[in-house]
């Protein structure tokens, strides 16, 4: 099978590429960054998904499946850049999928779009609205990208579309939103709050994406691994020290004293949980995580 992965130079995207390559699939990749030592059978096209050469990759190589992982989650990029890549990039990738006869598109999204709020249900199902658009406005571009990808389900019924809302991926790669949050020796928490955090091992996340392809999923699915643990447990389990900060002082501490920089909207996500119900995905793909929460934290700490 010919599989195109956008954003192939991300740590998790590379893992997906290697995994699919190892079992004999032909892998194409699009990324602005080079992958100089890409293994044989992985062809990387160094371009932006929004540029004409990206359309040429679709036109000339006619991939069967597209795994769209070219989204930015870190906040060091400007809001405009995030919007350009996350929303406009997603729009173009899906339009190319439709135009050039792709059979299945897999959008790798995030569970954070559900947003954190004191009165939100603990376990979110796929029908829940994306509250992040108001609770964490800086995530609006990812919310929009997720909804845009999901719109392909009714716009182009011939194109199988899997929208995966994945919990945080954590593990030896040290890449991803949660890994950045846990990068330093100290982890900021809000005094008097200790929300549940939902995460899965890097390898389990990769396995889930591969299963979405294998089962030709068509629909919106939450993807999760082991049950969630409190933020304090996560911090200690990864060898970090939780630093409880009174909420009014939080904005003054972000990015200082060795604490990570976080946009103002992130406060809700450190106060309240975002936990998803991934039953539908497990049913559809027989997916079982291999690493429990303890194993995930240890693998992050010790690598």
């Amino acid at each position, binding site marked *: 099978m010919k599989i195109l992965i956008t954003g192939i130079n991300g740590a998790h995207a590379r893992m997906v590429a290697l995994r699919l390559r190892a079992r004999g699939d032909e892998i194409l990749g699009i990324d602005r960054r080079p992958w100089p030592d890409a293994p044989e059978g992985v062809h990387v096209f160094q371009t932006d998904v929004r540029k004409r050469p990206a359309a040429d990759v679709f036109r000339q190589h006619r991939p069967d499946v597209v795994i769209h992982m070219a989204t930015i989650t870190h906040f060091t990029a400007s809001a405009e850049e995030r919007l350009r890549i996350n929303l406009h990039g997603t729009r173009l990738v899906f339009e190319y999928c439709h135009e050039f006869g792709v059979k299945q598109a897999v959008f790798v999204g995030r569970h954070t779009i559900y947003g954190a709020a004191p*009165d939100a249900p*603990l376990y979110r199902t796929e029908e829940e609205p994306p509250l992040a658009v108001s609770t964490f406005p800086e995530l609006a571009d990812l919310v929009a990208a997720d909804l845009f990808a999901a719109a392909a389900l009714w716009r182009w019924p011939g194109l199988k579309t899997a929208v995966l809302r994945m919990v945080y991926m954590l593990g030896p790669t040290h890449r991803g939103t949660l890994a950045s949050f846990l990068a330093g020796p100290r982890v900021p928490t809000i005094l008097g709050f200790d929300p549940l955090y939902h995460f899965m091992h890097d390898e389990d996340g990769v396995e889930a994406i591969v299963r979405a392809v294998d089962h030709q999923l068509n629909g919106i699915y939450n993807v999760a691994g082991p049950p969630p643990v409190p933020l304090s447990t996560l911090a200690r389990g990864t060898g970090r020290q939780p630093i409880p900060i009174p909420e009014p002082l939080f904005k003054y501490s972000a990015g200082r004293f060795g604490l990570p920089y976080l946009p103002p909207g992130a406060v809700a996500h450190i106060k309240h949980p975002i936990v998803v119900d991934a039953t539908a995905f497990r049913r559809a793909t027989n997916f079982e995580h291999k690493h429990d*929460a303890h194993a995930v934290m240890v693998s992050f700490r010790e690598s």
Partner: protein
Amino acid sequence: MGPFRLETITSRDVRDRLERLELPFNQYGMDPFGISKKHLGVFYSMLEVFYKTYFRVKCFGIDNVPERGGAMLVGNHSGGLPVDGGMVLASLFFARELPRHATGMVEKFAGNWPFVSEWFSRVGQLPGLPEHALRLLQDGRLLMVFPEGARGTGKLFKDRYRLVQFGTGFMRIALQTGAPIVPFAFIGGEEALPTVYHAKTLAKLVGAPYWPVPPYLVPFPLPLGCEIHYGKPMHFPGTGREPDEVIEGYVEQVKSVVELLVLRGCALHRQRADGTFAQEPKDSPSDDLADAPSTSEPTDSEP
């Protein structure tokens, strides 16, 4: 001196009972809903003092609560603070050999209070959302519901033991899940914390629906005897999609059973206050009380 450990303030009886509690704790002592065994230990040790010594709670008909499987406990609010909820939880934990843990449906404002929010979630008291109720019952858990809501705890002393309007949402969920409804009456809370006035400005300041002011000004309950009366489980036919009139009819039936239990409980409570408190009479299923009776002997708590 080593770090402070919560476990050190957990009583031996509570520790033994926690071991018998049928909750799926993982290696961190957490269940999938975020309930922490460690926090439960402290919580029940604290409730134990109030249950056995401070309020000297007598519990009748505990065997009406199923030992396993989902069920909904539905009762009256009694007193200006949710002392009633705490004592109901304690009765389920202490009054029987096989302890059970119930999840209360908490007012949403508590989710924004530091420490309160954290502790409520660690001891399994979740915001009162239909999604939570459904999920917990489907998972075979016990649910504690006060359909009077904040209107019930906000009652003034002059209106004591007069039930206010019941919400109807609980009935649809009971029908949808097929869970039995176990009615109960809580007696004594109204005398323990009589509300004579609502401090509206103070309530607004802390984001609560009301702030109870007793004649002695400090909103803390007095050490007066309390009783809990559980009635026989009630089953209703249906799917939860019935028209409002049907649901309201069912709710009225539950409300009238709770009212009967309250009336009966109040009579016994007066005897207790007079010093003429006998052992609870055997069930006297006269026609009008056929569905209502609490049961047999008190199961605790006074030495």
